[in-house]
């Protein structure tokens, strides 16, 4: 579904990604793991076209994203849950969700998808009129995921969904991720919480200093000595 071929990117003269190649197949859930500063967030920003790749090619279902502006990415079926949620803090939960269904095609199915999101996150229904900025971290994460789902995406990009959350909330969020991939969503998730994320995805890539260091099925990576030593502390 999504392919990256030798993608390089950065900010000004500061290069972050060096020829990254990866693939996400339909129905799969894939994680990109790696330490702080490895370029994980940059990787998602370049896929959602918030920054441009300086080299290489990104393709969604065969179509090149290189010349696509940021606001058209979602129309191709890629929805992003950005780092730190990036909700619209002074809009209500319901308005945030409404904005997720901003495109005309999504607007037509607004009511139906709202029900689906409320079923996935009953808390969102309870608090639908509350301003998003006043929610707790975990609730904000749910709202951000809900907002992304409102567009009916083919591919969901998740940027560090566990960041800054209490351990019990982290578990709940990963449970949601697992549920979504079980329901057939294609998910690309970027995470530092290696142990948790490898439990819920099919495959993973290890990104270090802007380069893919290794890849494999979640089970393979969980058992690889390199990962166990560096990331799991075993």
């Amino acid at each position, binding site marked *: 579904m999504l392919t990256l071929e030798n993608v390089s990117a950065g900010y000004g003269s500061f290069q972050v990604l060096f020829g990254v190649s990866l693939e996400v197949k339909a129905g799969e859930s894939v994680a990109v793991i790696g330490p702080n500063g490895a370029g994980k967030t940059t990787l998602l920003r370049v896929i959602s076209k918030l920054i441009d790749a300086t080299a290489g090619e990104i393709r969604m279902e065969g179509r090149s994203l290189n010349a696509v*502006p940021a606001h058209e990415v979602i129309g191709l079926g890629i929805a992003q849950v950005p780092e730190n949620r990036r909700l619209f803090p002074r809009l209500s939960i319901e308005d945030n969700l409404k904005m997720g269904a901003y495109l005309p095609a999504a607007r037509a199915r607004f009511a139906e998808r709202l029900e689906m999101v409320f079923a996935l996150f009953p808390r969102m229904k309870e608090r639908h009129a509350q301003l998003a900025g006043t929610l707790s971290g975990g609730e904000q994460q749910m709202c951000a995921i809900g*907002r992304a789902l409102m567009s009916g995406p083919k591919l969901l990009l998740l940027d560090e969904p566990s960041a800054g959350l209490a351990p019990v909330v982290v578990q709940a969020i990963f449970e949601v991720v697992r549920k979504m991939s079980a329901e057939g969503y294609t998910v690309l998730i970027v995470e530092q919480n290696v142990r948790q994320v490898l439990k819920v995805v099919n495959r993973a890539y290890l990104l270090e200093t802007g380069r893919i260091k290794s890849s494999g099925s979640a089970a393979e990576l969980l058992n690889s000595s390199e990962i166990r030593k560096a990331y799991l502390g075993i």
Partner: protein
Amino acid sequence: MKYAALALLAAAPLLGMGNYPLHLLIMCVLWGYVYTSWSVMGRLGMVSFGHGAFMGIGAYVVVMAWNHYGLSPWIGAPIALVLTAIVALLIGYPCFRFKIVGHYFALVTLALSEVTRLIIVALRDQTGGSLGVTPNTALAETSYSLGALQFSSKLVWFYVILAFWLGGLWIWKKVDESMGRLALEAISQEEDAAASIGINVTRLKLRVTLISALMTCMGGVLYAQYQAYVNPETVSGIGISLQMVFGAIAGGMFVRLGPTVGAVFTLLLAEGLRLWFGNLYHGLDLTVYGLMLVLFIIYMPKGILGAATQAWEKRRGGVARAA
């Protein structure tokens, strides 16, 4: 209730109002319209210190077209609108495309209004420079000229300007009712996230900037024709741009009538200062503006009408709960 208040306002000048109160009333409505125009974009996080430029273009282009080329304001005004649109796009597009927001946007627009003033002053052979200029009168033998858009009767001007003010409020409502409103709100809160959910940030911002700039330009046209005198200080430059910002914030830019309340407030304040201190302390009104702007932002960020509405709703809510 709403219509009764409007009818009262419309009928007020007919109840034998003196010339000076009528002039004040007209100015309140005119500036109410201009502040409303500013707030159309200002309340969505695009705080412009450059609207003096648009007003200046409106005022000067009609007067110049009439005085130098004999072109009626009916032709001059469209020319001014086109020029305003070009300037707004030239400033807006790069700002929005390259995500110049907040303070930086304010700075860019600040330069715009001052540049416009300086151009008017520099072209003094055509514009009269800082002394200002008067449109050649068409009222030598008649009391009105539709072609020259000149009327000796203040009453006519009152209704013309009242119509524009109502039109401005109508546009405000239309913007509010469109899906764009929520999108613009989203942009002002989280621009990247807004782009990620499919909002064409640059285009939406440009659209609302154009609406606001064109409305303000018409304010300049009306001002020039009504006052029959324009001066770079009173229609462009930092002073007038700051006054728009202050008026809108003081009145409350998040409620529809807020900017108008702000206009009444600033006009009465300016007139009051003039009465109390005369012309003794030139520039005192600007000093007081600055001081009050700070006080308003700290203690009444929603403005007079915004705070009043909030207090009223709170009280009503309290009563409802008690009952």
